[in-house]
């Protein structure tokens, strides 16, 4: 990986670690999380509850609240090291260059403010030259762009008057109105019905194409990620297990966890056969992370897996896996440089 290749990446997360210091002990919530996101690329972050996917997004925006603490790592966004910025500098980036759509639209909107004003407010904060009227007009245009019927009237509604799908459209309008370079979408459709989910996925896909934003899509739904993203990163218990192009990972998964996760989906299996289930439960993150986090549940675990943390191996173009099973056949990723990231 040369220096010029690095410049094409909009976001580089390197060796990120987040811990929570609680009275009952230290929770190792994120350990050695590294990945890259290219200009205009959309990347999915998948995993089960508690694997650290949302926390990764929060760490990028530096909104990890105590007792959580980012203890290690680098997050480079364009030419800025996000973890080294002052609070006022990061504020210039939040909502302006990096926006985040939350899971529950109704919880994220201000219940006592008309939605048009909320969208306009976002604009005014980030563009001081814009007057109240100008911002409001732009906000109404944006509501139109997110396919809200009769945007002039809808702008005067309060969040409680909207359906879940409409509220999520308002959130999307609010987050994209500043034309951010990176959009982080945290489970944007999990609170919605499938037919509404399909509308929202199409909407996000179309809008980011127009604006040219990159997307980090967080979801527990592998189908949603497969339909929206170019690449996918699979997380397990605070670490990256596998990453690669959607097609490579979904059709040719290399990490035992990804393989198991895909086999647990009831969608593809014949109803006569039992579903595959991954044995055991998610590890307690309070324990010191020794070795591979998946080792206790892994059907192919070896002795060393519980003692030694596996490095990341290149198993194909842009396809990387943190698992010792690939030691003999694949080179360690980024062997030429110090970083163990994802090639884009």
């Amino acid at each position, binding site marked *: 990986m040369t220096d010029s290749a690095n410049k094409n990446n909009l976001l580089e997360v390197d060796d990120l670690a987040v811990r929570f210091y609680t009275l009952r002990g230290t929770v190792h919530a994120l350990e050695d999380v590294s990945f890259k996101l290219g200009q205009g690329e959309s990347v999915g972050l998948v995993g*089960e*509850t508690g694997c650290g996917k949302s926390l990764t997004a929060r760490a990028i925006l530096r909104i990890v609240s105590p007792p959580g603490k980012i203890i290690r790592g680098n997050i480079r966004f364009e030419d800025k090291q996000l973890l080294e910025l002052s609070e006022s500098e990061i504020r210039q980036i939040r909502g302006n260059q990096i926006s985040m759509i939350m899971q529950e639209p109704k919880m994220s909107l201000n219940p006592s403010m008309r939605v048009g004003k909320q969208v306009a407010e976002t604009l005014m904060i980030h563009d001081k030259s814009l007057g109240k009227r100008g911002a409001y007009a732009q906000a109404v245009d944006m509501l139109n762009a997110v396919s809200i*019927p009769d945007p002039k009237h809808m702008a005067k509604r309060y969040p409680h008057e909207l*359906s879940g*799908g*409409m509220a999520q459209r308002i959130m999307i309008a609010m987050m994209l109105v500043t034309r951010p370079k990176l959009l982080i979408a945290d489970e944007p459709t999990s609170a919605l*019905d*499938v*037919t*509404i*989910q*399909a*509308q929202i*996925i*199409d909407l996000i896909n179309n809008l980011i194409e127009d604006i040219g934003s990159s997307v980090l899509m967080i979801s*527990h*739904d*592998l*189908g*949603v990620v*497969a*339909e929206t993203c170019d690449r996918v990163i699979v997380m397990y218990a605070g670490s990256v297990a596998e990453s690669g192009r*959607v*097609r490579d990972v*979904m*059709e040719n998964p290399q990490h035992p966890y990804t393989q*198991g*996760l*895909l086999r*647990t*989906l*009831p*969608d593809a*299996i*014949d*109803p*006569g056969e*039992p*579903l*595959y*289930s*991954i044995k055991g*439960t998610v590890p307690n993150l309070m324990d010191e992370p020794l070795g591979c986090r998946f080792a206790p549940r892994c059907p192919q675990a070896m002795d060393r897996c519980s003692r030694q943390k596996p490095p990341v191996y290149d198993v194909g173009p842009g396809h990387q896996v943190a698992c010792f099973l690939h030691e003999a056949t694949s080179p360690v990723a980024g062997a030429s440089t110090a970083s163990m990231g994802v090639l884009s």
Partner: protein
Amino acid sequence: MTAAVAQVSDQAETLLDIRDLHVKFPLRSGLLMRTHATVHAVSGVSVNVKRGEVLGLVGESGCGKTTLGRAVVGLAPTSGGSIDFDGQELAGKDRDDVEGLAKKIQLIFQDPYSSLHPRKMVRDLVGEGLILNGIASGAEVDRLTLAMLQRVGLGVEHLYRFPHEFSGGQRQRIALARALVLHPDLIILDEPTSALDVSVQAQTLNLLKELKAELGLTYLFISHDLGVVRYMSDRIAVMYLGNIVETGPTRNVFDNPQHPYTRSLLAALPSIHPDQRKTRIVLEGDPPTPIDPPPGCPFAGRCPKVQPLCHEQKPVLAVAGPDSLHLTACHDPDL
């Protein structure tokens, strides 16, 4: 597999027969609490469940599938139609008036975090049904409780614990043990896995299938997840705005959907395989509210193939396609 399904559908006796069921909730406001509108949560649903089968009830939030399940156990007021359960009429009756109903029909709720009493121990949660229904007493209660806990994958070490000490999947097992210990004929499962992660969901679905085969249970399986319903059900019924729009053997409905709503629902399902991606029929707009719904087809407002007739007359379920068990409520499904 198909042959086995057909056998169940043709010969088995009907355990639950719902005919033209209506559930309405009045919306009241003002000082005198006058009724100003009515929510038609279930408007004229006819569906039956045969002994030993799994009927999947699918639909989006607010379509009335949960209300239908609750009406069967008497938790929602019926305002018309009949619910025949094993020869007994349940509609319009108070839950307590029907003797032994709790023993025969059990409901498993969606959220295992709020459906278990937080201050009761597992031993009491599971065992209290036995005592209340006079099935067992004394040491017999503990023996039956423990046997059922072991059957669902829990053990003696869990007897004296409280619900908060368990994970979501384990809590759903406790809820299941609590229902099964009474040996009910029918279990209504209301989104039993939607609060669980996929790997835990797989364990729970496997357990449900095993228990059904072992204990000869009948399930009414309510879910919004089409993949789960396809895996679990022998037959399915698709609900939209308080109405059943399509019903039939699972395979027929999935392979050859007849109603425009079912088609768009199946097409909206995201696939993990880029090559299997379907041409999506993206539905415009939101589902309408069930508050004073207009006459005509409930789907008319969003249907890509709507005709003038659809706004005037409500279509009834009629045979669609080659299978006589596959019904759809659409004026012109072939269009």
